[in-house]
């Protein structure tokens, strides 16, 4: 009897852990997919690397003591996974983004003008990122989009603060020039 009740308790604990895992994935999967997609530049790789990131994170979840830091921690694993992928493959192609056919989809409550504007902003970001070097792109995304502090970016990219500052500064200057050219 005692054995049976402990088995039921174990099953309930497993179910709770499974639920928590599902919620964790649902809350973060879109953000992590986008982060990786913008670093590696194509959907298929982003899909594989997102899966790899979550598997790594969930296998090491005992290392996570502070739940409030889960988002940063996950971003760190994602960027490291993307960096490893780029190192393995060396070359990155951003052509897929430009060449992909834009489907006409209107989200609920979105006017055609808003849709157009959204598409324009997204294209602007993708084209702007494409003119940066790999490391500039990664530093800019982590610092300005993911809001990771510069010293943490340096740790994630395994380089010095001076180097990461140089990447961030160059990326902001290049992106600004790109926006100015586009406007004119």
């Amino acid at each position, binding site marked *: 009897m005692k054995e049976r009740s402990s088995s039921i308790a174990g099953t309930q604990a497993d179910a709770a852990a499974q639920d928590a895992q599902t919620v964790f994935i649902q809350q973060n999967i*879109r953000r992590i997919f*986008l982060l990786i997609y913008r670093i590696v530049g194509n*959907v298929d790789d982003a899909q594989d690397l997102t899966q790899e990131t979550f598997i790594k994170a969930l296998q090491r979840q005992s290392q996570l003591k502070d739940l409030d830091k889960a988002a940063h921690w996950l971003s760190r694993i994602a960027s490291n996974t993307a960096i490893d992928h780029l190192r393995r493959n060396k070359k990155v192609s951003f052509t897929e983004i430009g060449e992909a056919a834009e489907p006409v*989809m209107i989200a609920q409550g979105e006017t055609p003008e808003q849709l157009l504007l959204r598409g324009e902003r*997204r294209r602007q*970001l993708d084209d702007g990122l494409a003119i940066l070097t790999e490391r500039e792109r990664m530093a800019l*995304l982590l610092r*300005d989009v993911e809001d990771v502090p510069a010293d943490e970016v340096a740790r994630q990219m395994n380089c010095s603060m001076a180097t990461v500052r140089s990447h*961030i500064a160059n990326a902001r200057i290049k*992106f600004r020039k790109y926006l100015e050219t586009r406007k004119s």
Partner: protein
Amino acid sequence: MNSRRSGGHPRVETLALFARGDLAWLERRDVTRHVRHCAECLHELGEFRAVVEELRRGASAGLPPAVESAGEWSRIEREMTGNINVGVAAGRCIEKVGVHRLRGWRGPLVIAGLSVVFIAGWFLNMPHRDTAQILSAFHSAWRGAQTRNGTIVQTTATGIAVRTQGAMLTLLHPGATDVTVSVSGTASVGARYVDDETGQVTITNVYGQ
């Protein structure tokens, strides 16, 4: 790095970093002082801040076109979630198998291996003097044990006895009265007495070695 350009203005790289507080404290203080009175640099700063805003707006503009179509993202999301769950479950299975295997003959093997590494590491890394001292302590302890099993010097009612390897030799002082026995810290026992028959004083010292 020189953070100034001509005319005393900070360099454009410095302003790009200052826009989001990415400069070191000292540089940040200098630039803060400068931009208070420089409309040109203040304008540049505004431009960089606008760039960051534009980046963030672009990032929140949604999914890439290739996955944004109706149902495409939810299909990919479901597929990824399923694969993640399978991957995590597989990882846990492998962990359990690993633990079971270690419980067999591999556990002791690992412990033996680690012991060899530890001992080798100890002798290679400990200073020679410390290692010699430890060895000498072991040696002394071993000799002490051997002595306990080997030679014993003791006084008896009839004399001083030396016992070694199971045999005993006794130096007798028969018929003696007023025997003074002394034991020293150098493992020796001495006896001093006056012989009743001859009247001579006899001093006996027995050393254990």
